[in-house]
């Protein structure tokens, strides 16, 4: 049994094919069958007393205001201990610009509701686009609303309801939004899945949903995706936080930052190209070399990747199993490439050993 935010108890089994259980019962009245309409249900935005969520905390007052741009400042993170001490959610946002920010200041202001509004901004040509967040407490594995599995179960229930209403079974999927939040997305039209516009999510959700095998025939794994820019397949749910839009603008390459880069790279086996790039960074920090975009890309990439590793519980070291080691790296690496909108080839200076 799971406690819904309105106090209703719903078992995941009961949701299968019986989507008329509150709060779903009120959904059909706000579904616009004429075109894709983003739907938010206030019930889903109310934090439960047991597990208050910073990500949801500001949602009640301004719901259901129109989407607005994300303008949260990107704080600075200057040493690895901040990464290691940071809570898993909401994700820490790092900008390797130097400075002496405290660990507390590294937590960005909650913007999740805004992100979600952006994420479900309708894309023309689709009949429905529905996304709702499901939050659960990873530490205790006790859902405040549901686990990813329950999210999928709820999606099946709601899909069944829409099928009965419209005679058209919607495609659906559960997609990761942050390390402990899952969104369920549905669409009634669009053979390839849902197209979702939006600021933060538009680089992850469409690529997740475009992946063959997602949706109702999710044999390919519901949490798989291909990086939109990098082209790499990865698992966004295990990448140490959601993909964000980051930029190297204003970044200053410092010795403190390079120390972080070296700390992170030291976990991997020796790699000539990495050593070449670190050497360049030291020369740049010493004023002996002019930084190129490759240098800024490499520098910010490695620090952000360190942050993701730390969020995943690996501030240092690697898993012993080679397969797991590769998966961990690939997920963190690919998500970081997507953070900055880069391909692998943009990380290394052309003079780096090939």
């Amino acid at each position: 049994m799971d406690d819904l935010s309105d106090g209703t108890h719903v078992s995941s089994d009961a949701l299968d094919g019986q989507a008329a259980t509150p709060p779903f019962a009120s959904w059909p009245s706000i579904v616009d069958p004429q075109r894709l309409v983003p739907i938010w249900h206030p019930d889903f935005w109310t934090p439960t007393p047991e597990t208050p969520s910073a990500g949801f905390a500001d949602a009640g007052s301004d719901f259901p205001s129109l989407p607005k741009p994300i303008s949260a400042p990107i704080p600075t993170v200057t040493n690895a201990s901040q990464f290691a001490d940071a809570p898993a959610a909401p994700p820490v946002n790092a900008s390797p610009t130097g400075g002496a920010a405290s660990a507390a200041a590294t937590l960005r202001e909650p913007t999740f509701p805004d992100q979600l509004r952006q994420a479900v901004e309708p894309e023309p040509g689709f009949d429905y686009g529905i996304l709702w967040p499901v939050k659960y407490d990873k530490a205790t594995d006790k859902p405040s609303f549901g686990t990813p599995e329950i999210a999928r179960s709820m999606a099946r229930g709601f899909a069944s309801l829409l099928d009965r209403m419209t005679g058209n079974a919607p495609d659906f999927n559960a997609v990761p939004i942050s390390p402990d939040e899952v969104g369920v997305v549905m669409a009634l039209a669009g053979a390839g899945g849902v197209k979702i516009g939006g600021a933060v999510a538009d680089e992850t959700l469409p690529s997740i949903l475009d992946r063959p095998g997602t949706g109702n025939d999710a044999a390919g794994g519901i949490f798989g995706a291909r990086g939109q820019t990098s082209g790499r397949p990865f698992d966004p749910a295990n990448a140490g936080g959601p993909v964000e839009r980051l930029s190297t603008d204003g970044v200053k390459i410092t010795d403190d930052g390079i120390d972080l880069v070296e700390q992170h790279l030291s976990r991997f086996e020796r790699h000539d190209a990495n050593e070449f790039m670190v050497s360049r960074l030291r020369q740049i920090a010493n004023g002996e070399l002019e930084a190129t975009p490759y240098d800024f890309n490499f520098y910010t990439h490695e620090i952000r990747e360190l942050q993701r590793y730390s969020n995943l519980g690996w501030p240092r070291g690697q898993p012993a199993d080679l397969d797991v080691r590769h998966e961990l790296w690939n997920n963190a690496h690919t998500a970081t490439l997507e953070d900055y909108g880069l391909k692998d080839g943009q990380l290394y200076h052309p003079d780096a050993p090939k």
Partner: protein
Amino acid sequence: MNETTKRQMLEVLADDRRKWNWYSLDIALAIKGIVGIGNIARLASELAAEGLIVERPSETHPKGTYVITEKGRDFLLRKAD
């Protein structure tokens, strides 16, 4: 693993001036624009199982390095014909 993937990996590994492991191999392939072919560590194990490469212990690479074998080089030559 398909023949194209085999060839792509072996072409990189044929450069024996460097010590290759899953990490450097993945990056080298990606820089060539070859991404999404799968878990490189797993694929390398498949190449090793076919005798196209061997995994050798190394002081600098605790998990070992990949070295192309004669059979691997023959594979590249055959495919180049």
